């Protein structure tokens, strides 16, 4: 996939065109994954066609609360973001890294499982989610060591972005400069436009792979009015953000306040359940478990998502370095919003709001950051 900054081709398709697009991707051998209604939520899963999409549904998100609601129209992408990010596809929650077998002669053979999934076509990826993948790329592909399984899934993926038509109660991509319009990192980018009986999508072609697929999809050139309409939709969304985060000097603010009493305050509320890190599209930590079998002939190394909220995460000989809840919450938030910048050159937060929505007790990192900003330099009792 390539970024195309100039001469972006803009065309318009209708809902039949969208169905054609999904079919063309499936025929091209992609595993087509997109939004669909399951478990009273809009999740990302395999989709068979346009009928799998959450047509006419939206999501209401607040701190620690999520509910589906009916829309007044038949929008295919009229929701905000799903409970789980796309990272579960590129960075699976549980993955066997290798298996070792000892044969009867005592020789050892190590094998690595073949990647069984993909290539993926991701349908309806939001701008913040594309940014999140770019952040994970830095971790998995652009450091001194490459995660080859991740890199293979990533390079094969086809991304159909979706410029947001509405913002949710916990969204703050505008603060993080990551949305609501996808600027790069996609093969195709759609903006859904519903105007009375007219239901169309403006399509921006972002790569050669995108252009090749569009050859198979009936479309027409976008008019100046349609381009304007799409821009107005994204602009309206930008004005609807449910949350905001003041990023001015945020890195220094958090790094200078490790003993702020707010860390103890949030520790009274935090469950250390790790949901925030599981739903975060950029959190990349994992642990490995080594398993041996009863007959001592086979061993496996399995990688699983891990979290800085567990005791094992910071366990070294003798105990856990971050035993208190305050130290674990501080580690997570300070890494996400401040130390990440030193480590990878960007913030670790894209403003998708998942950690706020999916915290069972509704802890809001924008509120925690604002509380520290309101009284910087305070010291807790320790």
């Amino acid at each position, binding site marked *: 996939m390539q970024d195309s900054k100039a001469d972006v081709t803009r065309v318009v398709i209708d809902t039949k065109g969208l169905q054609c697009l999904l079919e063309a991707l499936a025929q091209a051998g992609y595993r087509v994954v997109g939004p669909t209604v*399951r*478990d*009273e*939520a809009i*999740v990302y899963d395999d989709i068979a066609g346009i009928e799998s999409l959450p047509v006419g549904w939206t999501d209401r998100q607040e701190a*620690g*609360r*999520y*509910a589906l609601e009916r829309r007044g129209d038949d929008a295919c992408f009229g929701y905000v973001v799903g*409970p*789980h990010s796309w990272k*579960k596809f590129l960075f699976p*929650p*549980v993955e066997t890294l290798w298996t070792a077998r000892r044969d009867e002669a005592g020789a050892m053979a190590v094998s690595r499982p073949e990647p069984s999934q993909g290539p993926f076509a991701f349908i309806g990826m939001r701008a913040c989610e594309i940014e999140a993948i770019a952040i994970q790329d830095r971790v998995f592909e652009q450091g001194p060591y490459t995660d080859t399984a991740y890199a293979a899934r990533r390079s094969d993926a086809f991304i159909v972005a979706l410029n947001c038509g509405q913002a949710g109660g916990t969204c703050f991509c505008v603060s993080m400069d990551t949305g609501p319009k996808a600027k790069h990192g996609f093969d195709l980018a759609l903006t859904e436009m519903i105007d009375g009986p007219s239901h169309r999508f403006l399509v921006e072609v972002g790569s050669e792979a995108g252009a090749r697929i569009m050859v198979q999809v009936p479309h027409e050139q976008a008019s100046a009015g349609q381009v304007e309409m799409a821009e107005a939709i994204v602009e309206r969304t930008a004005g609807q953000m449910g949350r905001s985060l003041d990023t001015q000097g945020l890195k220094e603010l958090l790094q200078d306040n490790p003993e702020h009493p707010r860390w103890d305050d949030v520790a*009274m*509320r*935090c*469950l*250390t*359940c*790790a*949901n925030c890190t*599981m*739903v975060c599209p950029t959190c990349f930590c994992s642990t490995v*478990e*080594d*398993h*041996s*079998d*009863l*007959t*001592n002939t086979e061993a496996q190394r399995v990688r*699983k*998502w891990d*979290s800085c*909220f*567990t*005791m*094992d995460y910071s366990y070294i000989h003798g105990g856990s370095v971050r035993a208190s*809840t305050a130290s674990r919450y501080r580690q997570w938030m300070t890494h996400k919003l401040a130390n990440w910048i030193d480590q990878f050159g960007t913030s670790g937060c894209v403003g998708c709001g998942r950690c706020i*929505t*999916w*915290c*069972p*007790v*509704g802890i809001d990192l924008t509120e925690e950051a604002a509380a520290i900003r309101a009284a910087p330099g305070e010291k807790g009792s320790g």
Partner: protein
Amino acid sequence: MTGRPKLAVWKFASCDGCQLSLLDCEDELLAVAGAVEIANFPEASSAIVEGPYDLSLVEGSITTPHDAERILAVRKQSKFLVTIGACATAGGIQALRNFADVKDFVAAVYASPQYIDTLATSTPISAHIPVDYELHGCPINKAQLVEVISAFLAGRKPAVPAHSVCIECKQRGSVCVMVQGTPCLGPVTHAGCGAICPAYRRGCYGCYGPMETPNMPALTREWRQLGADGRDIRRALRSFNAWAEPFRKESAAHDD
């Protein structure tokens, strides 16, 4: 260790479900029998080999004076002793007696209460003897049991995480039921079951007992926000792991 290590399975006050999970390891059972000598397992075989035993699995809680003596003898014969299940690790459902007067129960249940010789409390094995490892759950997860036995044989640490059920729930791809309005014990409960109940759209029942660092007051505050009252909270916490300290203390805080 020379030869195969000798395995013994002991039963105290319990339903047998946890030790039966060993027999339920159909695919692995032959491998278990090949790797260890099943020396004392009355549920599986009437052939009893005398101790000492290399590995003892202990199911059940201590509820009678006789069992309080017997567990001391088990410890003496066991090099490595693992308690399995909520009864053995927390006192089990029968620890509900600890919140009331056992004499009232005995009088209500038995026609001839004079024949009943029982303790006032049901307590975990660790309240009576040193325990080398505790495997939680009601019932335990058989894959985790095989993992504990495999780890024992290989001399390594078992991969049995003590974090919340939420991590397993998210790894499984379930949608959080609590954020959707259903009170759930998952955030304070020890992982191990694979987050079964939320996968079927139910709140967690806490079968695996408290996780490593449970924040009980924070969870129950949210339960009240979701409409649960003190009785709901008390009942949820007073089940299989009622006597586990974090659950016990929090349930007492809602005695309203």
